[in-house]
Each structure stands twice: as C-alpha cells, then as structure tokens.
C-alpha cells in the first residue's frame, strides 16, 4: 500500500468511469438533441420554446420550489393496441363472422356496425391487433390499429404517453421532481386549461380541491381597495375565501407568469421514442376543469 501514485491513478479511473458514463456519454445523446421534425401528423417542429411569460413563470416555479412536491414526468408501463372499425364495408355477414371469431362473443355483434368509428377490441398486443385488422380488411371492412400507452400515471389522466428527453429541451432548469405530494404537472396545460382555475387554486387551494395539502400562495396576489370599479382581473372568491367588503384580490405579475407556465406544460405530441396514436383534437377541447384523480 505504499504504491500511492498507482492507487491514486486507479481510484482516478474508477471515479472517472462514472463521469464518462453518466455525464459525458448522455451529453452526446440527450444534451445535443435538436427540435424534432419526426413528429407524426404535423409539420411543426417539437418542442417549441415557451412563450416569454411562461418562461418567466418557470422562474417563479423554480424560486418557490414547486418541484419539491410536484413531478413533471409521466411514466408508462406498457403499450397496447386498440382495433377501431372505421368502415363496415358492404359484406356485413363476413364482417360479423370475423368479429365473432376474434372473440367478441355472439351477443349482438351488429352493434359494432353502427356509429363508426368504433373500437371493437381494446388492450390487444401488437400481433393480435395486426392480425385482427388484416382479418377485418379481408372481410371488406376498414380498421385502424390505435397505439395506446398504458400505466397508472396515464390512467390518472396525468399524460397521454411517457415523457422523454425531447419534451424538456427548452426547460432551463429542468425540474423533474422526485416526490408526488401533489399531482404530476407534465401535461397540466392540457389537463387544466383554465387560467382562472389556476389563479384561484394558487390563492386558496382548498377552494378548488377539498382537503388539498397544498400551501396557499397568497404572496403572489395583492389585496387592494376597490377603485372606481372592480378590476376585471380580480379573483371571484366565494364565502370564507372572499376579501373583506370593499376590497379585491388581484394577481401579481408573478402569479400570471406562473399560470402561463403551467398552461404551457403539455407533453402530448407524438414522438418516435414514445409512439401513440395522436389524441383526437376534440378530446383536448373537452378536457374539463376537474383535477385529475
């Protein structure tokens, strides 16, 4: 053990290995990602840089340490396929025969022929789905195979697919979070699109979510005397949360920025690394104000 320099060198390389493996090598893979053009069904580059106000909101998110309780990463445990009948064709007898043979049962298979497009089988693996789609096509019908990512996070409505490195290209700093005291926010812009909901929720979390353990962020708001007429920005607060008469609660610029950032959080683009059938446009529009389970 007197061969100090040798030991020092050996320790140096033992340590350096992890630096090369976990710092340098990923830098070539994920640190140098560019905007992707390989996004299905759109010519837009993904991801796009956040607009200015949302960029400021990220700073508010960072300064307040929101990442201590919220993650921004959606997990996925698997991928399944749904077979969707889009066109029943003309040979209904052959189609029904195929559907019954595919395991749908004999009880009223005719129901699958109306109100198309309609999913006929869900949760299949890729081979089964392709087999069924081919069988339906040979029966003269048309069928799509939909790629559906699954997992508890997705079932909670926190996202449509797992998040990948590409999704975070323009976040600086990237705050993935490690603890879920609050729900995941990776896709909150799609899930909760109403900025006024967010403002009320920041001011008084328990106003919007009963029993929420989230602390209020009243320091992002000012209470002021109502002037000539009430400000259009003032929060609409019921009962116990309302300010004293003659006063109103208005968000500071920080609160607006934070809400702009939250609204800009969306990870529903289709990427090669996380394939899925693009969520149809109306689905996003009908997203409600209710927080995900």
């Amino acid at each position: 053990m007197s061969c100090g320099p040798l030991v020092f060198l050996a320790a140096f390389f033992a340590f350096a290995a992890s630096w090369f493996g976990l710092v340098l090598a990923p830098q070539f893979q994920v640190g140098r990602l560019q905007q992707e053009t390989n996004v299905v069904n759109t010519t837009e580059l993904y991801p796009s840089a956040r607009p200015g106000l949302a960029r400021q909101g990220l700073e508010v998110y960072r300064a307040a340490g929101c990442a201590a309780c919220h993650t921004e990463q959606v997990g996925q445990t698997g991928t399944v396929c749904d077979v969707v009948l889009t066109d029943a064709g003309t040979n209904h007898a052959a189609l029904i025969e195929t559907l019954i043979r595919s395991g749908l049962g004999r009880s009223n298979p005719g129901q699958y022929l109306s109100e198309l497009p309609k999913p006929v089988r869900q949760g299949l693996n890729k081979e089964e789905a392709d087999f069924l789609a081919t069988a339906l096509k040979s029966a003269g019908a048309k069928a799509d195979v939909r790629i559906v990512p699954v997992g508890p996070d997705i079932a909670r409505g926190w996202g449509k697919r797992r998040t990948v490195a590409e999704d975070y290209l323009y976040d600086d700093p990237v705050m993935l979070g490690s603890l879920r005291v609050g729900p995941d926010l990776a896709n909150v812009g799609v899930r909760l699109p109403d900025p006024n909901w967010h403002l009320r929720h920041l001011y008084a979390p328990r106003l919007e979510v009963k029993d929420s353990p989230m602390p209020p962020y009243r320091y992002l708001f000012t209470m002021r005397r109502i002037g000539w007429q009430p400000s259009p920005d003032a929060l609409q607060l019921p009962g116990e949360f309302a300010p004293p008469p003659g006063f109103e609660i208005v968000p500071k610029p920080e609160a607006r920025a934070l809400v702009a950032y939250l609204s800009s959080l969306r990870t529903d683009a289709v990427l090669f690394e996380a394939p899925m059938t693009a969520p149809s446009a109306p689905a996003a529009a009908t997203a409600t104000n209710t927080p995900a389970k």
Partner: protein
Amino acid sequence: MIEDPSSSKSPAARPDTAQVDASCRVPLFVLFGSAVSWAVMASALALIASIKFHSPDFLADCAWLTYGRVHAAAVDAQLYGFALQSGFGAALWIIARLGGNRVSQPWLIGVGGKLWNLGVLVGVIGILAGDSTGFENFEMPRYAGWILFLGYLMIGLWTALTLHRRNEGRLSPPQWFFLAALFWFPWIDSTAHLLLLVFRVRGVEQSLIDWWWSDNLLLVWLSLTGLGAVFYLVPKLAGRPLHSDRLALFAFWTLILFGSWAGIPAGAPVPAWIPALSAVATVLTLIPLLAAAVNVRQTLDGHCRALAANPAFLFVGFGVAAWLAAGVMRIASALPGISPITSFTWFGVALSELHSYGFFAMILFGVIYCSVPQVAGLEWPCAGSVRAHFWLGSIGILLSALPLAVGGILQGLKLNDAGTGFVELTKGTLPFLRASTLGDLLMMIGNLLLAVNFVRLSVRFGRARLAPSCASFAADLKPAEVKP
C-alpha cells in the same frame, strides 16, 4: 505524492498525540462548531417545513418561508452546513492522527472553514430569497457556489498536504477513504457547478448531472467519509485491531466502482440504458455494504455490550446499522419489481433521511464527541447530555424514517392503483407525516443539546486559556508557556 515508508522522519521528530491534537484545535473548533450550529439551524428549518404538511397555512403568507424554499434551505443547511463541513473536520483529525503529524497550516484551514460557512450562509439566504437553482441537492445559488468552492480549496488543499507530510508511511484504510473523498468532492462539485450553472447544458442532461452529483455526494462521498470514521473509531474505541484492511479496501473499491453509477431513478425520461445501468450498479452496492458490515462485526467480535457504555460508540454503532438499513432500502427500491412502487413517494425521503441523518450525522456526532475533548484538552461539561443526545437523535431518526418508509410504500401502492383518488391517497400519508414531524422535533432538541454542550465547552476552554494568559500577560509572558 505519497512518501516512501523508508523516508519516514525519525521518531524523535514525531509529535505525540497531544501535539497532533493541539494542531487540530483551530480548524476543528471552526469546522465542528459551525457544523453543530448548522445542524440546529437545519433541523429547525426542517421542522418548519414539516409542520406545513399538517397546517398548510402555517407561515404561508411570507414568500421567504414558503414550503419549497424552507425545504430546500433545510436540505442544503444539513448537507453543506453540517454533513460536508463536519466531514472535512473528521477527515482532518483522523488523517493527522493516523499520520502522526501536525496539521499543515491550521489557521488557513480555519479561514477556509470560515469562507465555507460564509458560502453556506449566503447560499441559504439566497435560497430563502428565491435564488435556488432548482436542482435537487444542488440548490445553492451560483454566487454561493463560488465561495463554497474557494473555501473547500483552502480546507482540502491543506488537508491533503497534512496527509502528504505524514510520519507514518503506510496508508491505513481510513486514510484511503478520506483521500478519495477529499479528491472526489471538488470533481463532482466543479462538474455540477460548471455544467449546471456556468456553461449550462440543455434539457434532461441537467437532470442527469444533478442525479449524478446527488448520488456521488450522498451515497459515495458520505459513505467514504462515514466509513473512514467508522474504520478509525471502531478499532480505536474497541481497543482491537481492524479485522481486515484488505476487506476494507475491497469495500472501498467496490463502493467507488458501483456506488458512483447508482443515482439515476428507474422512470427517468432518459434513454433506457441509463436507468438500467444505474439499477444494476445500485444492486451491486450490496457488495461494499456486506464487506463493511463483515469487517465491523469481525473487529468487534462480540465485544459490543461492553462498549455500549461509551456514548460515542453508541453513535457509531447506530450509524453503521442505519447505513446498512439505508443501503438495503436503496437496493430494494432499485429492483425492477419494487421501483415502480417506491418511486416518487416518501420512501425515497425516508431512505435519504436514514442515510444522511441516521448514518452520517450520527457517526459524525460520534467523531465530534470523541475528538473535541481531545483537541481541547477538556471534558464535555455535561456528560449526561451526550447520552440524551444519542437517545433523542436515534429515536428521532427512527420516528422520522420508519413511518415515512411505511407511509411511502402505502402511498406507492395507491399511486399505482388509478382507482384511488389522488387527494385521498395524499390524506392517507398524513398520520405518517405527523410521526415524522415528532421525530424532527426530537432530532432538533438533540442537536440543540450538542450545541449547548459545545458552547459551554468553548467557554470553559476560553476561560482556561485566557485566564492564565491574561495573568501571565500581566506577569510578563514566558516563552515556554506558549504551546504549539
């Protein structure tokens, strides 16, 4: 940089233990003294953060005291203020002791320690003011990072020089551990600081560097320093030789090789090979865990009971047990079947508490209780409070970590069942959080006892040193009385 044993200085030039200890006095008082105050500070901040879970409105209207900031400030005060700082002190003392030589430039190390504390203070205030970097375990703002690094350079450089100028040629296992820790810290710190804050990398690469930094600081650095102290204190307190230095070195190499790859969580949004490799490395940390456990067990060889009378040994014993428990928890939570349940839950918090408080802080309390009386030449003013600190600390840790671990597993099971409403499952963790707040309170009282004891000892020391020197100042100072 390491001397040949044949060139060891003649025995006549070797200072005796008392002289070695005396040379450690200034740096240890600075490093340990401030570390203890940061421990109190950190546990107070952690308590505030913890209370917010039961009453979210508690101190909520002040931006400085919002949960996210207080939590980050508590973590960093504990990490930088207590863990790293006391680790530097322990490394210095044991390196000087084992080398049988005086500390090089103790005053400069003291100045380095002061600079480090300035950095921690600036950083914690910065975090509370909203300047956190947003990176977990690396929240210290950029301006504080520079001061910290400069402070470390002064401490680390002269600690390394102390090791270099040792009188004992052979390096013993604790010195290996400390040397590696001494050298690894500036590497990981500069990597994280430069790549995260100065020449910022893009996207998830930031998270990867942050995970790599956290793992190498918490798992590798804390374990290296803590085990170095264990492999010194256990034989020392037991009065028996270390069972095997080869086994200790085996633990050393496997810890470096496997531990440094272990930090990337399973679900991370990075290419699959990175978390897969990390999971394998985490499971392989079982090897250093077992190697160290076997070594400590064989060294004691059933002499535990007699040693339990010594409170310093209690701290070390508890620390080793907590290290093993945290290690097993870490390995379990990396296994493919279990990681989806434990990820993003309080289980991870329990694990890191058990590791950095239960293991590292307890071992370092042991070192502080052993070393300070030696370097000061004074007993602890209140021996009873040492024991009280042990019981408060150990019960506090258990009360904090165990409920969080159990609550975390329940939370994880419910998180994986989309049928359970999110608010409902969060409410389910509250009883466990209450227990953990109580644990935080006990730990804070324990830390306070140490701080009070430390202050009283310093006051006594000051009186003992100042009174004669004042007297002799009046009666004309004699050169013989000035001790080195």
